[in-house]
């Protein structure tokens, strides 16, 4: 049995559909409050996939994901590093991506030092809910097949990926830039194709092992064909978001 652990805390709000995504893909999924993990870090040992889902952890009161990021960094960093070293998978979605970035777990969970990339306020200056198209770039990431497309929703106010140009160059060269926002023809473009102004249209990155993935869009919002905004106009298709979880399940089942 392959088991997924979805962690939640005050203000997590996409936990239920994330659990459903794991279950639909074949995982047995548990939803645990972070207090339980702090009490018993050994719980990590029971799982092969660790997910930090979306929401507004602690209200994003000190910046998106910041408080939860500190909680992971200061109280759970060792079991999480052990989890990654053991060849297991980690996923951060939206607020979970912000948490992974602001805790320094991305772009490299095994490196010390301050965060080298960040996610900040959308160029539009406000929360945006819209569907986007993503292209999987040639990368080390084990979660996607390069060249694949995924359509799903973004729902955030602070999703603009920002880093010094040299850092992004390095990430691209190292195969850590996983997903980019593209238009219907597969080309990179401005707003609203890129909904937040992310530099180089980056929607998701991974760590040097390719096993830790963080992304702003919500794959768990596209688990059923009726989720797609244009489903009444087209013939049914396998829901894109579910595919991501299936790939993870197949890899961990091997």
């Amino acid at each position: 049995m392959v088991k997924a652990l979805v962690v939640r805390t005050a203000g997590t709000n996409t936990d239920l559909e994330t659990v459903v995504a794991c279950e639909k893909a074949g995982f047995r999924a548990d939803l645990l409050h972070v207090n339980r993990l702090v009490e018993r870090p050994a719980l990590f040992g029971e799982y092969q996939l660790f997910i930090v889902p979306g929401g507004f952890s602690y209200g994003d009161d000190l910046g998106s994901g910041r408080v939860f990021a500190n909680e992971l960094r200061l109280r759970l960093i060792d079991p999480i590093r052990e989890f990654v070293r053991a060849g297991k998978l980690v996923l951060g979605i939206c607020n979970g991506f912000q948490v992974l970035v602001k805790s320094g777990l991305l772009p490299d969970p095994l490196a010390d030092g301050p965060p080298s990339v960040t996610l900040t306020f959308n160029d539009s200056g406000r929360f945006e809910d819209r569907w986007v198209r993503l292209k999987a770039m040639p990368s080390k990431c084990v979660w996607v097949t390069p060249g694949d497309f995924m359509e799903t929703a973004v729902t955030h106010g602070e999703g603009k990926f920002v880093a010094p140009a040299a850092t992004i160059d390095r990430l691209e060269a190292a195969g850590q830039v996983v997903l980019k926002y593209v238009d219907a023809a597969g080309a990179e473009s401005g707003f609203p194709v890129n909904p937040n102004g992310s530099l180089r249209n980056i929607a998701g990155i991974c760590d040097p092992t390719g096993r830790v993935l963080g992304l702003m869009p919500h794959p768990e919002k596209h688990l059923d064909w009726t989720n797609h905004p244009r489903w009444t106009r087209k013939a049914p298709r396998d829901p894109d978001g579910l595919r991501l979880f299936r790939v993870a399940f197949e890899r961990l089942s091997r």
Partner: protein
Amino acid sequence: MKAIQAHFRKLDREPTDVELETLAQTWSEHCKHKTLTSDVVFNGTTIPNLLKSTVFRATEELARPWCVSVFKDNAGIVEFDEKFNVCFKVETHNHPSAIDPYGGANTGLGGVIRDVLGCGLGARPVGSTDVFCVGPPDAASTPPGTIHPRRLLKGLVAGVRDYGNRIGLPTVNGAVFVDERYIGNPLVYCGTVGILPREKSFKAARKGDRVVVVGGRTGRDGIHGATFSSAELHEKSEAVSSGAVQIGNAIVEKKVIDTVLQARDLGLYDAITDCGAGGLSSAVGEMGEELGAEVDLEKVPLKYEGLTCAEIWISEAQERMVLSVPPEHVDRLLKVFAAEDVEATVIGTFTGTGDLVLRYSGHEVSRLGMEFLHHGLPREPRVATWAEPKVSDPRPPEKKDYREDLLKILGSWNVCSKEWIIRQYDHEVQGGSAVKPLTGAGDDGPSDAAVLRPILGSHRGLALGCGMNPRYGDLDPYQMAANAIDEALRNVVAVGADPTRTAILDNFSWGNPNDPETLGALVRAAQACYDMAKAYGTPFISGKDSLNNEFRTGGKTVRVPHSLLISALGIVHDARRCVTMDLKEPGNFVWLVGPTRMELGGSHFMLVNGLAGGKVPTVDPAMGPKILSVVARAISEGLVRACHDLSEGGLAVAAAEMAFAGGLGLNMFLEQAPVKLLTGESALLFSETPSRFLVEVRERDFGKFERATEGVPRGCVGQVTATGRLELVGRGRGKVLDVSIAELKEAWRKPLAW
């Protein structure tokens, strides 16, 4: 006041301040709805208990077996599937929003979410709605003591956005209405839908249960909120009453939801309710109505020191719930909350003595009999009068070309795109979105209603829609209400809901009921609610009224338009059968279902032409339900590619919206349009006759659709094209409209593209 005097004279003592505050809150218009539950002498005839004789009576007489709990609990409950029930409540938060739009809308949504969490033994919130009535956002100036409508609307949207998005609740349906009379007293409606296991739908506190308060701490915010909501607004309201506005924190409420639902599933309490208007006073008072209760006020956790006993008792500090907990479960219950850092405190006991006793450190500060508190309020019969207003009936102008009229209507505040608002709300969270508020080829057409799948393993859905048209109320409040009901039902039927499994909610926002004509208009609207609920077989399951929506400035009182919001909750048997309003494929045929009559009164055509009067749109109680039924059947049989209801702006606006949402053209020939007593082209294009739909049908389904809609007036009036133009040939005078969909869309998109 005299009843209170007599009561305490009998007891031979003076009332304490806490007792007076408790009575003021419990007997306030906001909490007791004393006007609408009074006898009303209407044009000389007595109507006993107005609401019971109209809205409730329709539901009672319909006796739908799928209605589980109506007009009893914090929200109305109906059946969803074999395992779950669904509940729905819509509240107003008008007066707080007038002086603090962000805080008012924020806590308006927060409050109605708690209504749902406190419904039955607790429901999980799964979706929300919001309707705003505001002054024109382009008003040149506004009177002293008011907030400019543009700034107000921005504050309202931000308030709903920040609460709903943070708590993780999709905000999926709503509307904005603009009228100058809302400048001083805007209206803010917030609704929430919840899902609860069928066996958790009823509650009853038991003798000996402990009173437990959970969630936020109590502070000095929201003091006198209930009584403030029941008074007229004026130029100094902001300075005098800002302390009555509550302060919201969505994350605290999310934590309360997370933990309360765990405690519910463990069966650790007998009853639950929210601390809403009137705070602990209202929550404990209502829960212990049959039992009586003792509360030790010093145990209530406070945000800061220095609150008086009365302040602790009536504060409307947010994010608090009250539970009735059997003594043997108290320890386990407190652990559930402590495990997730939520404060839960035992503050008293439901005693069984029938008295509500409050103590502070052992000193008794209040002792009221529950009987007097809940049934001691004397009811005065109210006087209401109504005379049909004399309305002129000008001949609508006939024109060669209606391009300008159509563009103006599309760009009017009530019709124009609300994308700027909708995209700031998360309508995807919880993962069950099936029909989104924006739809079509470019994800930006206006959906008639939203559909959610609250249980992700199932394709059963909930359609949420609403109907409202204050402009008709100036001409005829009865027809205003009838149209709102028909519109709410049309909206949910248009996306695929089952009209025989649809329930509705009423929210009246009215002026001062001491004015007999104002109350008379309300009586007419309530009578329409009864008549239409019966005609359509659609029960009301919950409702609320907000009176005294008036603003006093410069020695003059401005009353808001009579504003009845009808919200509809319809069951969708299979979300994979839903349809959206955008045109799908060139070559398909477009049918007009439902007859068009000469009804331009209150219409947007009259508005943009600067005309008053006209015949108000009238609901046909025999034909309306039939039309809903045939359209619903055609959709469930898969015969419909797109469906859009006709509302503001009539046929021309609905056709334009369908075309630009689909990114396709539409050729219309109105020779075949079903009409009744209608002359002229402008009425056919812009009349707002209710119970009409435009329906797109594939060529191969033409005959089937024709047969499925037999018995109702309908005609094939057009064909979808790839030209990207809306072309319209009238009844005999050639082309009266030929506009590109890009131009139509731009006119519609522009006003609120902030």
